[in-house]
């Protein structure tokens, strides 16, 4: 199971990692990237610790998502929208400034978008 978090800045990041370290478990950071809304981290957490760690993250105002199965690489994305028409739930959509936005909470993980991105900016989690 992989919680997905959006963290505002690097201090938040340290705080969150320390919070998780409190549980004295080892975990892998699978992905760390800067995104338009902050920092995205993708953690590989043992199943029996998910509940505790999710709570710890939420206590730090971190958005934790277990549903979305994709991650958008904001540095590669050019906001073209080639993925949007493939998304059955509007999880991928343009915001009011015509930039690509991904709503993790409504992604159903169909992965239809995965091979639609000409910039190879969509990765499966």
């Amino acid at each position: 199971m992989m919680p997905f978090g959006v963290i505002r800045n690097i201090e938040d990041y340290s705080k969150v990692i320390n919070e998780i370290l409190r549980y004295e478990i080892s975990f892998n950071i699978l992905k760390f990237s800067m995104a338009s809304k902050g920092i995205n981290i993708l953690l590989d957490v043992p199943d029996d610790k998910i509940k505790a760690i999710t709570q710890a993250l939420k206590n730090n105002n971190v958005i934790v998502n277990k549903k979305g199965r994709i991650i958008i690489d904001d540095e590669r994305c050019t906001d073209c929208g080639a993925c949007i028409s493939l998304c059955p739930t509007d999880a991928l959509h343009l915001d009011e400034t015509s930039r690509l936005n991904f709503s993790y909470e409504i992604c159903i993980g169909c992965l239809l978008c995965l091979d639609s991105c000409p910039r190879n900016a969509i990765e499966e989690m």
Partner: protein
Amino acid sequence: MNKTYIEINQKIGEGNVNVLTAEEMINKVEREGIKVAASEVDIVTTGTFGPMCSSGAFLNFGHSDPPIKFEQLWLNDVNAYHGNAAVDCYIGATRMAEMKPFEYGGGDVIEDLVSGKSIRLKGTSYTTDCYPLEEIDTHFTINDLNQAILCNPRNAYQKYVCAVNSSDKTLYTYMGKLLPHFGNAHYAGSGCLNPICNDPDYETIGIGTRIFLGGGIGYVMGEGTQHNPLNGFGTLFVKGDLKQMNSKYLKGVNFEKYGSSLQVGLGVPIPILNDRIAKNTAIKDKDILTDIIDYGIPRRDRPSLGTISYKELKSGSIEFNGKNVKCSSLSSLYHARNIALELKKWINNGEFFLNPPAELLPRQTEYKAMRQSTAIRFVKDLKKKAIICYNDCDLKIVAKKIIEENINHVVITNKANQLEGIVTSFDVTKAIAHDKRELKEIVTRKVITTKDNEPINVASRKMKIHEISALPVINEQNVVTGIITSEELM
């Protein structure tokens, strides 16, 4: 009120020029009317950002020691065209890397060059007395080059079609991933921000027009290839110094199962010389119409399923055939808008002046299809009689037919000759090996088929993709009218 290029450039120099983007101009004209807008506004800026396959760059490396005259050369494993002098080349956006096709291509090389990354150059030569070096393998960056000139024969389509797919398979095209049964729709271009849409009569755009190209300064060299002004599909042939450009506006792209290309950012300033031009620059998305084209038909003249406006396209879903279809763009509206704003900023800062064209672009160019000296062949020209067994047929009879008729495929139908399946000689052999007695145990029910009016090459590609050696030919009623096998295609 009429203005001249000289007057507008003077205003730019004095810092009191009035520039609006094409989107802002719509509001201005709506609020204050064409007359006021025409007299107050000096320039309208436009922008577009999308994949433009007809793009590439001329590079000059300078001479090696000993000198080499390239016969073949590769930039990061992407073959570049060499048919010019010794160390000139043209790297085309759609050429794919030889070891990593569909992942890296000419467009990526151009993006990497502009980003200042190191590029590997490999070249070979047949050698001459004046160019004795046989091979070279070296690295360079854009700063090491004498010239790096982006030179795109066809950019900035006035508008493009809206692509859908009627077939029962997902298609991977230059218009992106198209889901079967009209599952989605894709379009390209920025509508009311598109450069040529704002000057459809070519009153200002011509040879020498100074433009925004890839984040730097570029020029219109003339009409683009396939320029089709009579049907509203005008194009631009542009060039610019790659060394001044910004990788933010030149992005390599690789479309799944289609290949490489380059996303190009391009903006054209339209001088408001008179009321007519002012009116044209106030064009709205709802007034730019394009065709919905069925990419499920693998022919040049794909059927049009209706017309649609950019207003509807930009809304995210389109309605046709009584169905609501999700629709998105391959071009970034966000970047198109930013390009128009950036160009506006340059002009306002006195960094960008208008260049009057030496000659305006043609308005009457004819757009022709390819002349083919051999007639296109269809399935109906090559199909042969299908050997048919009914669905209740004994397996032994199927085997007998294969031997008697000396064939490899028996088509299985119902009593009305409607297709139900296919059996190959290998299926029968397998049946014996696995001790199966019934036809229904071995018949393939998901059959790939063709039709009379399908071009032979399309049918043969189907066989290649599905790794099969025959296609039953059916009509609209699913009745088998023949078969085409790999033998006929030899």
